[in-house]
């Protein structure tokens, strides 16, 4: 089991008409590992994530999870549920990634009931346990999304994803829409969750700043291709690719001065 990678992506490509959005991307993610995919707009990072999660069709290349291919669009219920337990996703916008008419707790209970033979009190107990893990209380569980702050909604989205106990969690710009002080809370929460259970992260981000706090390895994408890959500390302190260097040099930090590339 440990030898089989959680996720293996080979030559993944996406074409929209004449435009190639993702061009031969290959990734490998071992069990419990956390990988950051860094890139700017148009780098193809989100399209890559959407192909891996089955939300976007694949032009060419393969995605295997635990040695099995992605289920097709006409997959049976059992296959779909099994896939759900392999991979889950937390989306960028906490305002639209929750059903606005469903109470937070009900949303989690719905997912739990779908995946586990849980009923009544046991279901409620498990639901509250999940909510507690992400730092939400009963009052928030009984609220609809619009009464929660951005950070709280993102916690709810994380709890919902954890309800199926996935092997891999794809975080698609999951903290980008939040205030700076709240971003840190969510990043810490994610780090803590990984400390407690065997889960892998695929962290899609444009923001290099958070990467070292969550991921051991990083790949940098530009215009659909991977330009650099390696251990986070190595890539951030000693980038090989000029674009990676450019990206790192563009992050404001003490003593930094904005410079034009041209």
């Amino acid at each position, binding site marked *: 089991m440990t030898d089989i990678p959680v996720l293996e992506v080979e030559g993944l490509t996406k074409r929209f008409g004449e435009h190639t959005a993702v061009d031969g991307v290959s990734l490998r993610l071992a069990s419990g590992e956390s990988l950051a995919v860094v890139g700017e707009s148009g780098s193809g990072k989100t399209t890559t994530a959407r192909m891996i999660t089955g939300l976007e069709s694949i032009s060419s290349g393969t995605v295997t999870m635990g040695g099995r291919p992605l289920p097709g669009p006409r997959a049976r219920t059992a296959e779909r549920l099994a896939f759900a337990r392999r991979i889950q996703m937390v989306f960028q916008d906490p305002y639209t990634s929750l059903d606005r008419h469903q109470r937070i707790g009900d949303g989690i209970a719905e997912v739990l009931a779908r995946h586990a033979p849980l009923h009544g009190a046991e279901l409620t107990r498990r639901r509250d346990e999940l909510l507690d893990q*992400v730092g939400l209380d009963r009052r928030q569980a009984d609220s609809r999304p619009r009464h929660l702050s951005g950070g709280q909604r993102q916690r709810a989205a994380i709890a919902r994803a954890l309800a199926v106990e996935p092997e891999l969690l794809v975080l698609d710009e999951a903290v980008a829409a939040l205030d700076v002080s*709240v971003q840190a809370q969510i990043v810490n929460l994610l780090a803590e969750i990984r400390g407690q259970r065997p889960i892998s992260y695929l962290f899609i981000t444009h923001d290099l700043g958070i*990467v070292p706090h969550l991921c051991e390895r990083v790949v940098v994408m530009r215009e659909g291709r991977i330009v650099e890959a390696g251990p986070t500390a190595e890539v951030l302190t000693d980038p090989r690719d000029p674009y990676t260097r450019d990206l790192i040099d563009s992050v404001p930090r003490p003593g930094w001065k904005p410079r034009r590339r041209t």
Partner: protein
Amino acid sequence: MTTATVPLLEFDSLRVTLPLGGTQRTVIHRVDLALAAGSAVGLVGESGSGKSLTARSVLGLLPEGARIEGDVRFDGASVPAMRQAELRTLRSRHAAMVFQDPRTHINPLRTVGDFLTEALVSVRREPRAQAEAKVVALLREVHVADAERRMRQRPSELSGGLLQRVMIASALAVEPRLLLADEPTTALDVTTQAEVMAIIDEARENRGLTLLFITHDLALAAAVCDRIAVMYAGHLVEELPARRLVGDAAHRYTRALLASRPDPTVPDARLRAVDGRPLSAFEAGPGCPFAPRCAAAQELCHRERPEPRAVADGRAACHFPHAVDPQAVDLDAVDPHAADTERTAR
């Protein structure tokens, strides 16, 4: 900065209330800030801090029904007291603003050239040809290649980074003395952000502009500004020289903000979160607005609102400012309870 000269821009106990939800709600509690001519000040805060409204008050662009107490003075003249004609002169000749999202802030139906020359032709009565030559030169100055062609294009044909340069050029076109930049790079990629900031920095230097830079990014503000002013829930909580930010920030909130965005290239920099979410100005209680989230808060902090006091060569509105230690940067002092980060998550 000598006290004898009049600052180009001065906020004097500015307080703003807006009619929201049936009552007059406070959106800015208190802002005291002076910008000397030629200086650059970064106004930093999270959502609901009131930083954007503070900038808007300079151009008299506050929402209808806004009530202003205190004063905003441009070159000694009170902006809230200005009549329409004076306000128009201020906007068209002395101060210009760069907005966050150029895509929505530029009329999508008209050409880039129309947008750039509009103020020159309609307000300053410059001949069209002269105005066009001027803005084409400006586009080149902000490093827009192919300026003549861009003039004839419409906003939808330009990328976000390019459009923001157009916005900057249009601000520079009126040869203002004050540039207000409201999160000009938030909608842009990091590499584009660096370029756009470099362009603003360059223009400021070449023209001796005064800059009020609104952002949520402390490090970015510190990189292009002389002084930093931090806002929280409608209060200006700290003001200090940019170069002393990292070591000498006295307000707990400023330090917390710094600790939640450590330098990614420094190994083992620790990410420290503050509990809770940023409050909006109208949610602030009677005490220090940051007290509910502050690890060092005492009983006094919840009861009494701190007055801004001089700390080193800046000011901070904090009952228990972080003691400045010139020897070491002790970020841990922000957070005396080691378990606090974890409590956040629980």
